[in-house]
């Protein structure tokens, strides 16, 4: 989500956004369309706007979608690699990248159900989600996906002996 220095309701159309920019120089941009309009407006009328904050800018010529999964995966691998290169983190968690690969393999073979906290209140919800099935439905949800991975890892940590990576009798 993007925001400007002053909050305002999102515009319904690109034209409405451009008109609001022209008159007030302040809009609350929620989607790519308005960000693109803002960038074009700034380019064409650089002296008409005092200040702007564009959060999460996407260049108008960039096609969103095909790279998202790759970027998310690379970001995750980078985080895990950073942990592995840190002595304290590695001592605590071992090789998290290997644990991640093992978790994925395990979930592919046998999905587990987890209870996730409500993302807005933090209170546990009774809904349960199977991670392997959720893969098809959470494409854009990095935050919740991360929560799901952590929850799955915790569930798996109770089901798998971390020393031998063998499934304990109680987990089957």
């Amino acid at each position, binding site marked *: 989500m993007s925001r400007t220095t002053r909050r305002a309701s999102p515009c319904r159309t690109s034209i409405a956004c451009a008109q609001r920019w022209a008159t007030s120089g302040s809009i609350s941009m929620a989607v790519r*369309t308005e960000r693109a309009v803002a960038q074009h407006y700034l380019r064409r009328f650089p002296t008409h706007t005092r200040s702007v904050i564009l959060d999460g800018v996407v260049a108008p010529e960039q*096609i969103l*979608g095909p790279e998202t*999964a*790759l970027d998310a995966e690379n970001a995750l691998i980078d985080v895990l690699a950073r942990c592995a290169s840190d002595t304290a983190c590695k001592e605590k968690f071992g090789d998290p990248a290997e644990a991640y690969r093992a978790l994925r393999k395990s979930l592919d073979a046998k999905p587990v159900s987890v209870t996730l906290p409500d*993302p807005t209140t933090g209170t546990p*919800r009774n809904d349960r989600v199977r991670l392997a099935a959720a893969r*098809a439905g*959470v494409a854009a949800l990095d935050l919740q*996906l991360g929560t799901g991975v952590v929850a799955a890892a915790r569930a798996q940590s109770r089901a798998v002996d971390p020393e031998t990576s063998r499934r304990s009798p109680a987990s089957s």
Partner: protein
Amino acid sequence: MTLSTFEEVASYGMHNAVVCTEDVPFFDTVKIDRAKLEATFLGAVQVDAPSAHL
């Protein structure tokens, strides 16, 4: 559950309205490596799901 909670914090309809009109029509102009996508946790669903509505 995940989808229902996401609907509470963001407008899925708005997201799809923008992506499906401004990005999906241009998917065939960029190289999409499906093998690489399939190897990620998210997979190719972000390419396949919106494209299925065209």
